[in-house]
């Protein structure tokens, strides 16, 4: 059936999600694998990029990349991310639809095969991955860790989360620790790959003008060869309320300070009261009608950005802003004042309507790109239930003013982190 979300558990630990449609020029096929966020993360997180670097048939990066170029620039992409206290390893293939192939090739079959070969038939021998390839990928992962520090905004956010969740598995980096990455061996990665195939919950996602049935059959020809499957998913601990406020400070020679606040939002488990909390966050610091945008930016001119975001899989709300160092305290006070006013009932019916309309508009745009449809499945990869955008929109529209006030009153400040700029303002001049 076309133009509809289909979610089907075809066997224990294997779920197939599809949205077939012919309105796009491209198709996306992805394998998303869920493991608990614990133990040695590095030996897991390196796998997607290692598997996308070669396979038995195309045993080095050049031959694999040339094959992808010949498949009209098909993109084989690795990724790794946290979903609450689960780690999701992902390999995706984006390709143009068969009808655009200039010589009538069946691109979708070739692309699906290549994805399966990357995952199930890597370039391994004698119980180990190829040594030089492993060393290169380790180095690239270490460079990613280093490069991450160059983006001051996301660096400050991560430092806040690390401090906030210091005693929780959530503070583990999705890339693994530097020490663990350095110590990885080709044999260890082989064992970890075997473990991934045996224990991960797997979600196969198909979006676009692709044949889900044929792809699923092809995938299972490889998948069913894996012996001794026993699936383990992680449980996410959610802390509903903060007890005391933790504070962190780091100084750097930068021009603008980055202020990050972390709040607990009363959730007892992931995504509890999601629609209500999401609406609160939207009115607090989401759209241009939100309190943070209207007051901290527009009225007080304290910053260019001041935005609140909800991490529903962990029950955390973050607020990020870039400010003059001397205004950091003032900005924090102003953010908390806006929260206090919402707790005291400062939510109008008019604002609620704006939020409803804006989020409806946002969530319905999911249907217009294959990336967003694929992302919609992906965002729910660690959940047992599946919700469509329409279902979420219906829940959001049922949220009342009182719900938002109640949610505001569940919100407690947990952590404040300031990446303090000590820069003098000298760039390179002529």
């Amino acid at each position, binding site marked *: 059936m076309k133009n509809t979300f289909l979610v089907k558990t075809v066997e224990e630990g294997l779920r197939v999600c599809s949205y077939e449609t012919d309105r796009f020029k491209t198709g996306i096929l992805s394998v998303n694998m869920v493991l608990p966020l614990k133990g040695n993360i590095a030996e897991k997180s390196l796998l997607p990029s290692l598997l996308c670097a070669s396979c038995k048939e195309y045993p080095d990066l050049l031959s694999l990349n040339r094959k992808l170029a010949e498949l*009209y*620039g098909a993109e084989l992409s690795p990724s790794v991310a946290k979903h609450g206290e689960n780690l999701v390893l992902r390999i995706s293939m984006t390709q143009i639809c068969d009808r655009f192939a200039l010589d009538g090739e069946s691109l979708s079959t070739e692309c699906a095969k290549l994805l399966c070969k990357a995952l199930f038939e890597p370039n391994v021998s004698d119980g180990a991955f190829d040594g030089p390839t492993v060393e290169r990928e380790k180095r690239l992962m270490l460079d990613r860790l280093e490069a991450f520090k160059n983006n001051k905004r996301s660096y400050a956010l991560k430092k806040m989360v690390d401090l906030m969740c210091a005693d929780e598995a959530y503070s583990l980096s999705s890339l693994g620790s530097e020490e663990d990455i350095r110590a990885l061996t080709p044999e260890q990665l082989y064992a970890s790959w075997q473990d991934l195939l045996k224990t991960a919950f797997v979600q196969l996602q198909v979006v676009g003008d692709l044949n889900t049935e044929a792809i699923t059959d092809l995938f299972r020809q490889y998948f069913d060869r894996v012996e001794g499957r026993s699936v383990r998913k992680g449980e996410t601990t959610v802390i509903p309320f903060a007890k005391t406020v933790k504070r962190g400070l780091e100084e750097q020679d930068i021009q603008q300070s980055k202020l990050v606040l972390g709040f607990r939002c009363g959730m007892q488990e992931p995504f509890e009261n999601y629609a209500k909390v999401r609406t609160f966050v939207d009115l607090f610091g989401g759209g241009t009608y939100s309190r943070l945008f209207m007051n901290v930016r527009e009225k007080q*001119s304290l910053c260019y950005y001041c935005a609140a975001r909800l991490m529903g899989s962990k029950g955390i709300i973050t607020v990020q802003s870039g400010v003059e160092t001397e205004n950091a305290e003032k900005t924090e006070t102003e953010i908390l004042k806006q929260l206090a006013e919402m707790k005291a009932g400062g939510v109008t019916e008019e604002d609620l309507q704006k939020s409803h309309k804006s989020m409806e508009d946002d969530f319905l745009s999911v249907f217009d790109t294959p990336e967003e449809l694929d992302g919609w499945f992906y965002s729910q990869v660690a959940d047992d239930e599946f919700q469509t955008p329409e279902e979420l929109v219906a829940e959001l529209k049922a949220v009342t003013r009182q719900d938002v006030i109640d949610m505001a009153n569940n919100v407690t400040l947990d952590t404040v982190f300031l990446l303090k700029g000590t820069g003098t303002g000298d760039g390179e001049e002529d």
Partner: protein
Amino acid sequence: MAKIIPHENALLGDTYYEVLHDTGLTILVYPKPGYSTSYAVIGTNYGSIDDALKVRGGEEEQLPWGTAHFLEHKLFESEELDAFERFAETGASANAYTSFDRTCYLFSCSSHFKENLEILLDFVQHPYFTEATVQKEQGIIGQEIRMYLDDPGWQVLFNLLKALYVGHPVRVDIAGTEESISHITADLLYRCYENFYNLHNMALAVAGNVTVEEVLAICDSSLREDPEVFVERPDKGEPKEIVRPVADQEFAVTIPTFALGFKETHDTPIRSTKERLLTDILMDIIGGETSALYERLLREGLIDTGFGYEYFTGPGYATVIFEGRSRDPEAVAEAIKEEIRVLRRDGVDPAEFNRLRKMNYGKAVMSYNDIDGLANGLVGAYLNGAELFEELDLYRELTVEDANEQLARQFLEEYSALSVVHGPSQAV
């Protein structure tokens, strides 16, 4: 009734329509049946490189750097409800951006399209600036400028442009400097608005769940006639020489960031689509994921997966830029230059050329999904005098001879510069 010109592409199975409206505005509509949302963008041929205002036959007036971007921020305001507040009533998400050569205002929505397009056309036709609102914005934009000062990728690019360009305003940050924007006044904004925001100097593009008829009906009732103003984009007289071959800046970074640029001369104001596509393929041949150079630099630990390149070009400027992070940027720069020397000596390999032509064709097809990309692409192509579908046909016609011929004029070492942003302990 204005004439509707269809532009059809048989391969894609898509058609968009072009209309020159009676008011002088060019309207482009790309219907996407089955889509849930619509996206509209209106753009003017006025960006950060326009640091002077000159109407045909008139005197040239210098403008403070960052004026186009400042005007973009302020156009959302009106005497009553500002545009953001009006879009909040309908649920649309609205935004705007300023680039080197244009300023665009946009929204996307899944309902109330008519109302939203009316708001868009209304606020871009009704400026409202006062000294008080201009002053307030200086604080916000000041923070925006400072945010970019902490972005090594942004800094390394502008340091490169300052090393390559002697006088072309492309060397200055789009938002200007904290000093330059302090000279902006409400009067100045009105003057720029009156001239650059002339409908004859603008284009509207809509893509998504719309028909050309409904867009035209809304335009008919929302646009007011605009007498044509001929704004000129004077030639900057940029010499072919560069300022200096290196630029260094110390920064709070852990791995140095670099940008290697090859400046080109300009006999036409804008590069043609064919020149752009050939350059893309040549850059792929030199340092793309299928190149031996890329594989070697990765293997030797000289680059990471953030390595990339672009053809940085617009009115009066064109530079090929290779950029990334490296512990030894000089070694990477030398390796790229050596690869170019070898390519120049041996010529382009026909098999590699065909493979990359196929890849680039595929990437081009991929870009026809996103209505935001399509609408912005339509406006950009129109303002640059190009046609959106042109590239798909061109990919089939390009030959290895074309590539070799173009190679002779490009990637010239004597007009290249290397910009590096490095940490305090990594002095170069």
